[in-house]
């Protein structure tokens, strides 16, 4: 198979040539039947443009047709965190060690909402952009990678709220609680793992969600349940011993614990938890890529 060219070449070969306009950068483009096992990346330089376009559309969906407009973007996480902190930290008194529950919850939420929003928009991407994909075979991958835009936005918003809350505690209690230093590398590692999980699940489910509504309805509840199983609202140490295995073998425990450990200095995930997370990801990723590429090829062949 040939290499791809810089322009107009979803498939094909390129080699420099002279053209009527004397631009040496223009190339011969060869179009052949697709034979690749990986998803289409599209011509060089267009992938990120399309991903940014789709990402902006996902963000717009949050405030589209509302009176408050853009204000909803910061308002949603603020209301969400206040409700959860009041319920779990206030009424139920969930322990959070030697730090306020609000700080504990916020730091865990940075990772979770980054993952959750990225996954949600990844698997919804093809169905959400169906009008763009209906007649023109735009590569599918940018729609999935674009999902990182709403995910990152949510993560940043929770991080900003955490900074404000920590600033408040710094003034009132003299402690900032969050430490940013060499340990923060663990937090970056955790975010990276979550991003890979989000994309993998997006690649796996997006082609199904595109054609079968039931999948999306089921996924909504699966992710809500997964949120409860992942130590966001509580720490692993507070889980009764007989249920510890659930947390250890939950592939998302390690990334969330990495983020919390990196920023709050809580214990890092156990070795078994990290291995589980990495092995599940390594097993799922190639399957997701292959299925996604196959579905994309089949759909594009029909256009």
């Amino acid at each position: 198979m040939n290499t791809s060219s810089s322009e107009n070449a979803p498939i094909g070969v390129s080699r420099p040539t002279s053209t009527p306009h004397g631009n040496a950068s223009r190339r011969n483009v060869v179009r052949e039947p697709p034979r690749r096992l990986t998803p289409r990346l599209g011509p060089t330089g267009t992938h990120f443009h399309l991903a940014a376009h789709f990402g902006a559309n996902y963000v717009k969906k949050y405030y589209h047709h509302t009176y408050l407009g853009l204000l909803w973007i910061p308002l949603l996480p603020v209301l969400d965190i206040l409700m959860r902190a009041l319920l779990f930290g206030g009424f139920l008194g969930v322990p959070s060690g030697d730090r306020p529950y609000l700080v504990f919850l916020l730091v865990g939420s940075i990772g979770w909402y980054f993952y959750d929003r990225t996954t949600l928009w990844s698997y919804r991407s093809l169905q959400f952009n169906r009008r763009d994909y209906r007649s023109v075979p735009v590569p599918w991958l940018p729609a999935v990678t674009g999902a990182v835009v709403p995910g990152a936005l949510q993560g940043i918003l929770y991080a900003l709220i955490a900074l404000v809350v920590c600033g408040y505690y710094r003034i009132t209690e003299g402690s900032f609680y969050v430490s940013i230093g060499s340990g923060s590398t663990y937090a970056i590692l955790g975010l990276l793992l979550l991003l890979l999980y989000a994309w993998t699940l997006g690649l796996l489910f997006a082609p199904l969600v595109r054609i079968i509504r039931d999948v999306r309805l089921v996924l909504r509840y699966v992710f809500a349940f997964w949120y409860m199983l992942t130590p966001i609202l509580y720490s692993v140490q507070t889980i009764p011993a007989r249920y510890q295995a659930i947390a250890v073998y939950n592939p998302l425990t390690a990334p969330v614990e990495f983020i919390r450990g990196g920023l709050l200095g809580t214990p890092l995930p156990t070795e078994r938890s990290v291995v589980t997370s990495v092995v599940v990801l390594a097993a799922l990723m190639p399957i997701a890529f292959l299925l996604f590429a196959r579905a994309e090829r089949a759909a594009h062949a029909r256009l």
Partner: protein
Amino acid sequence: MSGFPAREQAVFGVDSADRDSGLSLEHVVKEYPPLGPMRARRFFSRLGGLQFDPALADRLADDEDEDDDFVGEEEEQEAVDRGGIGRKVVDHVSFEVQRGSRLALVGPPSAGKTVLLKMISGIVAPSEGRIVARGRVAPALNILAAAIPKDQKLGTALPYIAAVAGLPPGLVRSRLDEISDFMELPQLRTLPTLALDKRRRPEVLLATMLCLDPDIIVTDIPLALGSFAERCVQRLNELQTRGTILIAEARGARGLVPLPDRVLELDRGRIISDRLYDPATEKQRQAAG
């Protein structure tokens, strides 16, 4: 291009002696496969013991899903309308076009003209065969005009549509002023796409592609009379002198603006005639039906 039938190897176009090939198609086939998603949907419908009813599903959807629908059903209907399932819409087509040529693809509906244009543009991949295009291919196709995002300003929508067509979006961004002048729309950057009527959207796309200095321009947008058409013809003439190939699609070659120098007639996905444009012959052919 060795191995091509002699008729298809013939060189057409003005001043063809000293020019080389800008585009060649080798045994290109486009065949639509059966509809996979429909099989999956039917399986799930049977699993639930119900017939899948998208209308009912939409009614049951919550507010967040107010504008959701699912593509399988539409895809199937569109493919059936196209008459594409289970047959080759383009069947072993081979030809070569030299630089500076104006080629008209003519034929009845479902002859495979549009699919061929889409394949040359890279929008659709061939099922078999090979297309070699030298240089930048600029597709000004109705299908792309329809895909211009309606809720955006043209300054954002045009680079997006260029990216969809496989062209560098930055190139379009850098030519927005030129496109604006060409369209005689001074506020083009900030103009919402919805402000343009359906007829103007293809024109904006055509203007965009003409301003990108293409080596091959592929279009199914008809040019009528008027100042825009005149500017397009003038621009096409300029491009042609620099060797740009124009490939246009029409039911008949006589109505094309500007007139082609070569006509390729298709029927049921096959080339049935490859001839130089001659007004008298085309008139005769059109009269014959």
